[in-house]
């Protein structure tokens, strides 16, 4: 029983890590309507940036969050402006090709610059654990989880209650109508994309404490985030949070009972079952939103 309780806690905490990545993915998809296949590689860039700063300056990974988020903000803005924006009216499969190209280029660039070695950032705080009853909790995971919840609330408040956030929601619903109401479409898209990717910068600082970095690390996280986002409903913020927690639980429980090398098989079966039974996901925006 105590093992199961421990698995439950681990799963929920892991879900927190997925949640930040999934929120940024779903935010970009929901507003810009582009599936960013380079999302994992942008996270990888963030993790490398975190690692470089910590190994050179000895800063704690948590302290690197601001510069790394800023870096990814700039990269995201550039990607939207120079790759996605010219293709906004192109067919969806052409857009997918473009993001896949960016993903391939970034992944191999990392291989060129850093090699295939696995590197980890050193951290004084975040790897230690404390006990509550029978359950042991790693402080870094708890911090990630709590910040994920704050991010979700923050994004929610931003979208619901700020002028810019309302503009984003208007864009998500109807690009042409939003443009007619005075939303500067291109500028707003750049902002959404860059905000989405800067969340990855935040995630990198948090994850660098627990996870090592290597060129294909992004694929590991983002394949899972894609499953989360489809499960929660493409473009849905609550869906991304609930989906992350759910997949975190599956990850931890299947990893223990099925085997850690096969837990992704379990995700994929879930993914296909969702698409068959409820293609709009748990909180989907309904037909036509895909």
């Amino acid at each position, binding site marked *: 029983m105590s093992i199961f309780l421990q698995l439950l806690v681990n799963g929920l905490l892991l879900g927190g890590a997925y949640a930040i990545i999934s929120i940024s993915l779903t935010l970009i998809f929901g507003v810009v309507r582009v*599936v960013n*296949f380079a999302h994992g590689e942008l996270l990888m860039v963030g993790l490398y940036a975190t690692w470089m700063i910590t190994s050179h300056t000895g800063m704690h990974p948590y302290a690197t969050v601001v510069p790394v988020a800023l870096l990814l903000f700039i990269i995201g803005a550039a990607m939207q402006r120079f*790759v996605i924006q*010219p*293709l906004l009216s*192109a*067919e*969806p*499969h*052409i857009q*997918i*090709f*473009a993001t*896949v*190209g*960016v*993903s*391939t*280029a*970034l*992944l*191999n*660039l*990392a*291989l*060129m*610059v850093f*090699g*295939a070695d696995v590197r980890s950032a050193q951290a004084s705080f975040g790897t230690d654990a404390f006990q509550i009853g029978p359950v042991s909790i790693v402080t870094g995971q708890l911090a990630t989880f709590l910040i994920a919840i704050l991010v979700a609330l923050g994004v929610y408040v931003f979208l619901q209650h700020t002028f810019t956030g309302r503009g984003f929601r208007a864009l998500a619903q109807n690009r042409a109508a939003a443009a007619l109401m005075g939303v500067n479409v291109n500028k707003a898209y750049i902002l959404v994309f860059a905000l989405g990717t800067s969340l990855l910068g935040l995630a990198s600082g948090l994850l660098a404490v627990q996870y090592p970095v290597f*060129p294909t690390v992004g*694929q590991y996280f983002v*394949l899972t985030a*894609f*499953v989360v986002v*489809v499960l929660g409903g*493409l473009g849905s913020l609550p869906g991304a949070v609930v989906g992350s927690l759910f997949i975190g639980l599956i990850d931890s429980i299947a990893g223990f009972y099925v*085997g850690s*090398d*096969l837990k*992704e*098989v379990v*995700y*994929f079966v879930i*993914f*296909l079952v969702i*698409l*068959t039974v409820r*293609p709009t996901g748990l909180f989907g925006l309904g037909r036509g939103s*895909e």
Partner: protein
Amino acid sequence: MIFPQLTHPRAYIGAAALLALLAAPLAINSPFVYHLAVQVCIFGALATAWNIVGGYAGQLSLGHAVFYAIGSYAATMLVIHFGLSPWIGMFGGAIVAVVASLVIAYPTLRLRGPFFALATIAFLEVCRLLVVHFEGLTGGSAGLNVPLNIGLQWMIFREKWAYLAIAFGFLVVTLWISWLIRYSRFGFYLIAVREREDAARAVGINAVKVKIAAAVISAALTSILGSFHAMYLTFIEPSAAFSLELSIQIAMFALIGGLGTVAGPLLGTILVLPAAELSRGWLSALGNGTHGFVYGVVLVLVVLFFPRGLVGHLGGRALALIDRLPGSRRRGPGPRPKQVANRVASASKGQPLLVAEGLQKRFGGLLATDNVSLTLHEGEILGVIGPNGAGKTTVFNQLSGFIAPDAGTVKVRQANGEWTSPSSPEGFAQTGVGRTFQIVQPFSGLSVLENIMLGAFMRTQSAEEAESIARDVAELTDLTALLDHEARGLTVGGMKRLEVARALATGPKVLLLDEVLAGLNPTDVTRAIAMIRKIRDSGVSVLMIEHLMQATMALSDRIIVINAGRLLKQGKPADVVNDPAVIEAYLGKGYLDAQAA
């Protein structure tokens, strides 16, 4: 046409270019050139096979290597564990690949959106994990060596030219299948579904079925190529076979050559692969990953500046040059089809043909259709009028299967006199209900002729016969002069007539016209009125939504007025226009009062 007609200049130039791929290495006779030529043949064939689902159907498979790997592993494992020749084993692999493609395609291709692309990547990853996990069978992450039994039956040779001959054979067969698909009814259907799924369904195409079929065919071909490639490489491992990079490479060759074209994927491979192989040496000297980095950058640049690929951007000019060469052109006119509409048995004239009973449809709080019943009789023109927002198009969508009513039924009388209630747009089209769209939906990349042929394919498998039907319909709809133009270049009047022509080519008993006169200039209106009369006289019953009052009055035998989702009035045109309730619906109560005063 099962084989290309080799006296046509396009065909013999193509065949000659293809043979050069075989002849040049034989003439040079160097091991490296042989290797390059084998790789070009295999990757050209892989890209061609990918193009069937990625290009024709427009469904991006980013994990296509999974089918390649299934073929590699199946053939190799059958050799190792059962001593089965890869010539047989490759079909075993193809069967597994077909099952795998169904597992991915069935849930995802019913949906619009990026789900298929996501599922293929995820599936690739999962299969790789499974292969690594079950190492007893598959050799795990260390991979498998192909037993080196030399001989034709094992697909293992000492001489490189033998590999080239077989690779070339696979390439030719794959190209031939791709060509066959492109110019068959199935190929037209794929393009129609890719361009406009709704319009495709309205001419009776089961969109989901054709997309899944494309995925399955592509997977089977890819798997067979993978089997051969494993025999050629004599070694397979999960990280190379189940590789995202390989999948992207294949798709990239097709993109660079031209998506959705027959020759494009091979041309793209010929252009990129040798350059990549030659530069691999000095690029990897710069560091691991340089090669992949260049691929990624090239991919982005091509998408941004060259999205239609070699064939798309330069193909037209090249073809114009080739067409100047001597050779036979088109064949004589195809077999004459049956008459466009010939089912007007005068005995059943005036009998009900399409009956809607108690239709009800709610969108959230809005009752868009409230208990509407109507009957269309054989041989009549029934006009549906009503103010804007009255719910006419919603009724229309229920009569053609695009919206399922919350309550009520739509019945169509079949040729044998029995009634049927189809449930999908393609079901309605197939029982003889053709429709047009208020907002025109041409397949803009296709010519006018091909647009109309798409409708005709509902009645015939043969492209010649479809073309012949299309030409007859074009006569009826005044489009003959425009047949070879691209549909996107038509005027509004032309587009509206094209909508009618496409629906008419399906050979409907009932034609639903959604505002085909709206937005036309007076000349086009006169033309369209004459056209609708001709259509009715050819035995098709017409139900038309129209705002243009004079035209509706002149054309309709009966008129139905819909207001606020309800049937307000039906009857002869003259009675309906003078009805106070109708006038009130259109002009408000004030008008009547003012008239009375």
